[in-house]
């Protein structure tokens, strides 16, 4: 079957019930999307499908079809980081870093619908993205910082 990942069409030889996570990691070769729980409990595997954040570990490839998929590898433009990634670096967010692809993908989706999120918005959007290193206070700061960066980018 065909997947459209980060703007490119990729042929993957997997049965339709195969979780998108493993097709991305093993067939497309994009390992930035992480396996954490296999049961949509931790958010480490979050990618965008048709602009919506999805838990790729429980999303069958067959349900995705040719809807556009964006992974963590698809955010930056060459060497230029996405503003959310930039904010993550500025706030020294990552510790082990394993969950951060999922945190970032969830945040990118949040900022599309809420460009100036409140703390409550952040709590609601990221409540199911677990971080064992405890980077939540920095993630919160980085989300606000990313909103600033996006706003200044959008300004004429």
């Amino acid at each position: 079957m065909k997947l459209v990942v980060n703007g490119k069409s990729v042929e993957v030889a997997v049965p339709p019930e195969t979780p998108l996570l493993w097709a991305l990691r093993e067939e497309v070769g994009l390992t930035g999307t992480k396996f954490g729980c296999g049961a949509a409990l931790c958010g480490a595997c979050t990618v965008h499908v048709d602009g919506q954040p999805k838990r790729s570990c429980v999303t069958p490839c067959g349900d995705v079809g040719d809807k556009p998929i964006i992974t963590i590898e698809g955010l930056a433009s060459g060497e230029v980081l996405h503003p959310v990634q930039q904010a993550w670096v500025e706030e020294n967010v990552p510790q082990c870093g394993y969950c951060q692809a999922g945190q970032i993908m969830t945040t990118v989706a949040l900022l599309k619908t809420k460009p100036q999120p409140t703390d409550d918005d952040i709590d609601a959007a990221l409540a199911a993205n677990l971080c064992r290193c405890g980077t939540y206070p920095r993630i919160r700061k980085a989300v606000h910082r990313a909103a600033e960066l996006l706003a200044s980018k959008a300004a004429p």
Partner: protein
Amino acid sequence: MTSDWSRRGFLHGVLVGGGALALAACGGGQKLRVEHADQTGELVANLYITVLASGRVALIVNKAEIGQGVSTGYATLVAEELEVPIDHVDVHYADSNKSLRVSNGMQITGGSTSIFEAYVPLRQAAASAREMLIAAAAQTWNVPAKDCRAVAGHVVHGGNKLGYGELTKLAAHHDVPKKPPLKAAKDFALIGKTDRRIDSRGKIDGTGIYGIDVHVPNMCNAYAIFGPTFGAKPSNLKADRAKQHPGVIDVIAFDWGVAVVAEKYWQARAAAADVDVTWGEGVLHRLDTGKLAAALNAHDRPGAVVADHGGDVDDALAHAEIKVGGTYEAPYLAHAPMEPNNATVHVTDGKAEVWAPTQSPTIAQAFVAHALGIGMDDVTIHVTLCGGGFGRRALGDACGQAAQISAHVKRPVKLTWTREADMTQAWYRPIYNAKVEGAVRGNKVTGANIRLLSQSIVLSGKPYFGAALTALPGPLARMVTDAMMAVFSTNSFGDVFATEGIANTPYRFSAFKLAAEPVQTKMPVLFWRSVGNSVTGFIMEGLVDELAVAAKQDPFALRRSLLPANSRQTRVLDRLEKLASWSTPPPNHVGRGIARHFCFETEVAQVAEVELIDNRIRVNKVYCVVDCGVAVNPDIIKSQIEGAIIFGLSAALDQQITLVDGVVQQRNFDTYPVLRMHEAPEIVVEIMPSEERPTGVGEPGLPPIAPAVANAVCNLTGVRLRRMPLQRAWNERGAT
């Protein structure tokens, strides 16, 4: 996008794989150093530092980056003394290497020791390279070396200026200085100032390679099926249907479980559903944690006295006007790092090459050597990024398993555990039970007595570590075994890890006694972030808070009265009292609690502000003051403390591993909850200014949080919670 390990640069292979290391470790280093420099333009200054012909610096970090920031910390130390911008330093994580077994005879990341260990030697290593480059420039210009200065990757003298890359060949001819001068603290440009982590990029753009991301040519994948209880052996394997799945290479029963091997992990995972197997009894003998806890509560033997700080405790208790205390309890805990256990191994001709997210290449070598019946020298470990560690990755269990699978299928194989395997086949923080008594007379503390029961990591680990380590042939095995046992240094009942934080408490009671006794079960137990301190801090600070309430004293004042005057402890308390605005009472719906603890040579004190919302303990804010000596990277220290508080809060409030009939009841994050974004408190961290040698940071932030919260709950409600997890204790308060 490359996740192919084989495509990592040549440099990595030369430096980390042994070329430069062998060279630097070699006794006749000078001749080799010159030859190497002539051929490559690289100055291999020592085991850790190579200055490249480009002028960039290759730094071999002999620690795992488990999120604690060691790569930035070590790069800071080196850039400071070598006088290069920190972004000129490229970090390479060291492979297993005998010359690098510098931590208790091992290569290991743990015990909050990385900066403590490296602060002087790594700066000396960098200063050596600097002095050699200066000597080369001085020779070039025919001027005294003492008149030359190293500045931003160059050596300068008057109007002369040469980049390091232009000096490496000549520098190799100069002697390695034995005692190069180190910069004075007042001249530090980076230490205490550098805050930006150098390892963020790969962690936010998907390019960082964790163990689970390793790809080597011709690699296949394995999915492990484990029995329902620890140590259960498989029999009657029926895998015919599984073997018919596309891509499946083999289904193999080992002592430890069944491996389903396929070209791709998703194929192995799908085929595993069609494996049928019978499981043996395992080693836990139907262990039931409910019954175990009851037995520990009922246990009334006094135990061996392991610390007696003087005074007559019995007399103090007999003459107390008020006696405080009760039974403090803590459950088994899993580390549950976000990256499930995994390893990639290629076995060929009696040798094994391993890629793994490991905290200890030496222990990983031992596990693989034991699993294959080969020598440790025949095992090479490549260390990847680690998706969390917290102590769990000190073991090499997945490495040993993957090695056996690779030997069987005769291909490189990556073994990836499921989350459920990671949770149920873990090596857990031991359970604790402590009977605590404190005596107050005339509003003064007159004594305290603690009787501690805990499963010993040393005694419990011996059969497992022993199997992995002592069975090895040759003197290497004995060396590693001795090193392990040296780490497991003994006191009392053979396990300092059980009593640390109480036996060595800085509190000076007029009478104080600690007795301890090991709990013997076959449950595998291991170091868990801050080890014994994760519970002993809870016990001591609960006791001290109980004493403060009974003696009608302010908890800051009482602690000061029990601590050495003008000590690290009291200075941290003084600072915390101001930071938390302690003199201003909180609103009625908020409780405040204090706790402090000294471990890994670092003093940490915290105030937690707590409220109860629909019977849920909600921690709103935590103030924290840390004294860890010189703060090399202040913002990384703050992030470690924040992380330790949140990691500790997950455990303090909610986490427990329970067993019924030997079966772990928690299998994933739905039943083993991790604190979430909306539950994380606001955290304010202050670091005490210091010129003392840097001490531990990764772990010391954890022990105070549980008692600070329990003490805050008592402050708010009058209910003393002595059992973790606290939320469960709160829910069951009053029940017998």
